[in-house]
């Protein structure tokens, strides 16, 4: 029984790799560090997820996508997805793989262990140059800023570092 639980949980985590952020379709909710934990009780899966930004309109869509995906996992009849806030989501929860996938989508990943108040070094995701300038710390979505690369002349986006303050 214990083994089976572990297996179901493993299958759920694998399935969640297919659930992408609708606003950044290259990265999964697992790679984003949004999945805090999964509990299995009988045939019910309880997914505890961490919201990235509270006003993010994608949160409801992500919640539904997680539910729909987990429902298809063998051994699961019921799914509840709860957003939790403790400990809060920070950009340090994004996996190394996730950071690579952000780059593929043209988004510079947030720096690790960022100290709030200090400038953050943003390399161009296209050419790798550090010769970039911040155009607007607020971008098209709550989690992104707009940056310009002076080397390859591309505008691009960077994910804002969010630390546990």
């Amino acid at each position: 029984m214990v083994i089976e639980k572990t297996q179901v949980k493993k299958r759920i985590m694998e399935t969640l790799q297919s659930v992408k952020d609708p606003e950044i379709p290259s990265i999964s909710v697992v790679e984003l560090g949004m999945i805090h934990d999964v509990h299995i009780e009988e045939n019910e899966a309880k997914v505890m997820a961490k919201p990235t930004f509270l006003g993010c309109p994608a949160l409801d869509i992500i919640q539904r996508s997680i539910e729909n995906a987990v429902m298809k996992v063998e051994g699961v009849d019921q799914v509840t997805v709860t957003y939790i806030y403790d400990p809060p989501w920070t950009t340090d929860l994004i996996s190394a793989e996730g950071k690579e996938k952000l780059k593929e989508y043209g988004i510079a990943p947030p720096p690790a262990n960022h100290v709030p108040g200090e400038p953050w070094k943003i390399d161009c995701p296209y050419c790798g140059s550090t010769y970039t300038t911040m155009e607007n710390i607020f971008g098209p979505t709550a989690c992104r800023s707009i940056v310009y690369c002076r080397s390859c002349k591309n505008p691009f986006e960077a994910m804002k570092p969010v630390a546990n303050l």
Partner: protein
Amino acid sequence: MTFESIDDLKSNPEALKACKALLYQLADDDFLIAYRGSEWLGLAPHIEEDVAFSSINQDTMGHAVMYYQLLEDLGEGKADDLSHLRTPQEFRNAIILECKNGEGSYLEKPDYDWAFAVVRNLFYDHAKTIRLQSLKDSSYSPLSHIARKVIGEEYYHLMHWEMWFKQLMNSTPEARVKMEQAIEKVWDDFGGVLTLGPEGEKMSEFGLISEEDVLTNRWMEKIEPLFKEVDYQIDRNPELKQGNGRKGEHTEDLSQALDILSEVYRTDPAAAW
């Protein structure tokens, strides 16, 4: 004393009452300033600011939702109903946050005051950050968790308004005059943000948030060096000239805001939004 769960809090009716009063203030403050901010969409000084301000308002509206959700969890009714169906007298936001952005309306001849927007948001974000710092240690655990989350987002808002404030205060003589007028105007009513209202003492007694005086002093400690940096001084304390929103006192501007905000929701409250 700590209240780890909803049931913990409910077992103490006095603390429950104080906590609800606090949550209404937090929710309504964020809700109204986010709404007034959203009215700037398409009207901000330049397109990059339009993007930035919209993002800030979206975050802030998200924060309000969290507080309304905490109220819903405490049995106050649906979060959407709390934000859209209460009467103006039931709102507990500070009056300065409900004030219109300037002359005219969004659709007809909006002659909005950017200096007012900058000053109001900066002062508010300082007060909000100070409150959040205190709320991180709130005796009501669900509230402290939300505060920890919100503060990471709030950090960027504060930085944004400080930049605008310093640049405009040190800009042209015209900008300086407009900024000083805006400071005076916001100062007249900013006491409304700083007060915790009639339930304030109970809130701190139960460890939900720090004492009003402590929070106010911390705010002054943030504002004074800022004024000094831009060579400005004011020799009076923030006032409550138009009344105390924490007691349900409001202006016509709140009714106007709520009429527009809830127009769609009221057409069919039974619909699934």
